């Protein structure tokens, strides 16, 4: 048995915050329950689980819950499951699930991403960070030079845009300002205070040209997307959103050996899978763990030329809720919290169903793009309401 299309049916999300007392497995349960109710499914109808990056024992806050544990904890009878970090970034877990349901390996797959980085920092006895005397693997090429955060790595790509294309901090600021403006209209957003250009420009620098407001913050939350087979849509009561195209890539799996970022080939590849074009897209939900990544996704997906992302978002009108290409309408990770990739697909479904409430974009949106990653790893999803 096979079906030609995969859909996101149910969506769910836990409370989003910092240092939440509720344990990460229970936050995951909250998101699962909401997604099941949204889809009109019972847990007994779930036959697959997919997650990124799986349980990471040495950094439990980064990923405290794996597919194995969730399957056993919820009594899921899985005919297919997968979880791991060696995939083209967070939403690669959705691509894997879609591939599985298209192949007939499962009908309804729970895709989840649970983060507990703020909670873990506050409770090191329960969530210890393992410290080694020496670094190895990929981090040996950056950590000895005190390039200890992805901020330092993304900043170097951003500096090339500054020097090569004249990107300004005022232009880049629009990613954060727009996210924070939209987050005010999202009841679940973690940061709900507005951010002004003056505050942005006065913020302390993290790693030039990135300042504090260009970087997302540790968050506790779980987000669930149920991916269902096209021939199983009779089981659900919600409006399904079709995964109309998917693309992903890896560039050297390295921040310093890659000539350029993985989102550029990924963005180009996305349009090869579909008859849709960028002109058909009603809203974009683009990974902004660092603001600059969202700017480059706009270029990579062909909404503007390479190098013109700064000019494209200048002033912010174009990417506002009532602009021609509303961006990160839930606040993005800079406003809504570091949901780590899954928030972008979740919000795409919300907007395409017209369920955005105060933050709903106008008109009758039918097509959205959601992305994750952008550095050495990238995934892009094109979502359509038929």
């Amino acid at each position: 048995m096979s079906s030609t299309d995969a859909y996101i049916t149910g969506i769910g999300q836990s409370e989003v915050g910092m240092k939440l007392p509720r344990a990460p497995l229970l936050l995951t349960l909250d998101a699962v329950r909401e997604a099941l109710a949204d889809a009109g499914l019972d847990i007994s109808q779930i036959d697959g689980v997919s997650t990124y990056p799986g349980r990471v024992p040495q950094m439990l806050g980064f990923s405290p819950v794996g597919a194995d544990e969730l399957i056993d904890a919820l009594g899921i009878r899985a005919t297919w499951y997968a979880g791991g970090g060696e995939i083209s970034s967070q939403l690669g877990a959705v691509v894997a699930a879609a591939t599985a349901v298209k192949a007939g390996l499962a009908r309804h797959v729970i895709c989840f991403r649970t983060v507990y980085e703020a909670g873990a920092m506050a409770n090191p006895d329960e969530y210890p960070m393992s410290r080694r005397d020496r670094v190895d693997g990929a981090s040996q090429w950056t950590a000895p030079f005190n390039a200890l955060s992805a901020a330092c790595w993304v900043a170097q790509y951003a500096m090339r845009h500054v020097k090569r294309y004249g990107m300004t901090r005022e232009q880049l600021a629009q990613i954060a300002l727009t996210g924070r403006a939209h987050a005010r209209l999202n009841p679940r957003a973690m940061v709900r205070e507005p951010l002004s250009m003056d505050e942005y420009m006065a913020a302390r620098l993290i790693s030039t040209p990135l300042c504090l407001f260009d970087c997302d913050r540790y968050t506790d939350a779980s987000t669930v997307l149920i991916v269902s087979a096209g021939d199983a849509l009779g089981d659900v009561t919600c409006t399904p959103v079709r995964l109309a195209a998917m693309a992903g890539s890896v560039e050297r799996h390295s921040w310093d050996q890659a000539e350029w970022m993985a989102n550029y080939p990924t963005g180009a590849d996305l349009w090869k899978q579909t008859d849709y074009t960028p002109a058909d897209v009603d809203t974009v939900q683009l990974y902004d763990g660092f603001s600059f990544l969202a700017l480059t996704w706009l270029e990579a997906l062909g909404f503007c030329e390479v190098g013109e992302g700064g000019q494209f978002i200048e002033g912010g009108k174009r990417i506002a809720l009532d602009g021609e290409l509303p961006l990160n309408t839930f606040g993005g990770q800079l406003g809504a919290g570091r949901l780590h990739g899954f928030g972008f697909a979740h919000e795409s479904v919300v907007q395409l169903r017209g369920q955005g409430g105060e933050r709903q974009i106008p008109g009758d949106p039918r097509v959205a793009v959601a992305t994750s990653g952008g550095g050495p790893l990238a995934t892009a999803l094109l979502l359509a309401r038929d």
Partner: protein
Amino acid sequence: MAGHRALPRLDSQNRAFWTGGAEGELRIMHCADCDGYIHPPRPICRHCLSEQVAPRAVSGTGVIDTFTVNHQKWHPAMEVPFVLARVALDDAPGVYLTTNIINCDVEAVDIGDRVRVVFEQQDDVYLPLFERIES
């Protein structure tokens, strides 16, 4: 920029790179069959799949491909600001090294600056840092 640095765990694949500075040499894995360079070092040429690879000393000069001035103290002992850069090596096409640019004002660094390697020893590791070549 002195102070604490996380040091690499040395193994058979990376030892030549991290200890070449003891002899003043920046050693990059090189392929005898296709003349390509491989970094991070592995026992396979990523250009032609040959196993005829060995560390080779390169000149240690290069160009700043991109950089950032880091202002955030990622741990309490860190001295900031400092320059992080990605250096393209002159004679190892396609190989970049993340490094620090030292011995100059942090605001003086720019993309395209020519640099040369300066080794900083910590324990058994010789970190390849770079300084600008004044023109």
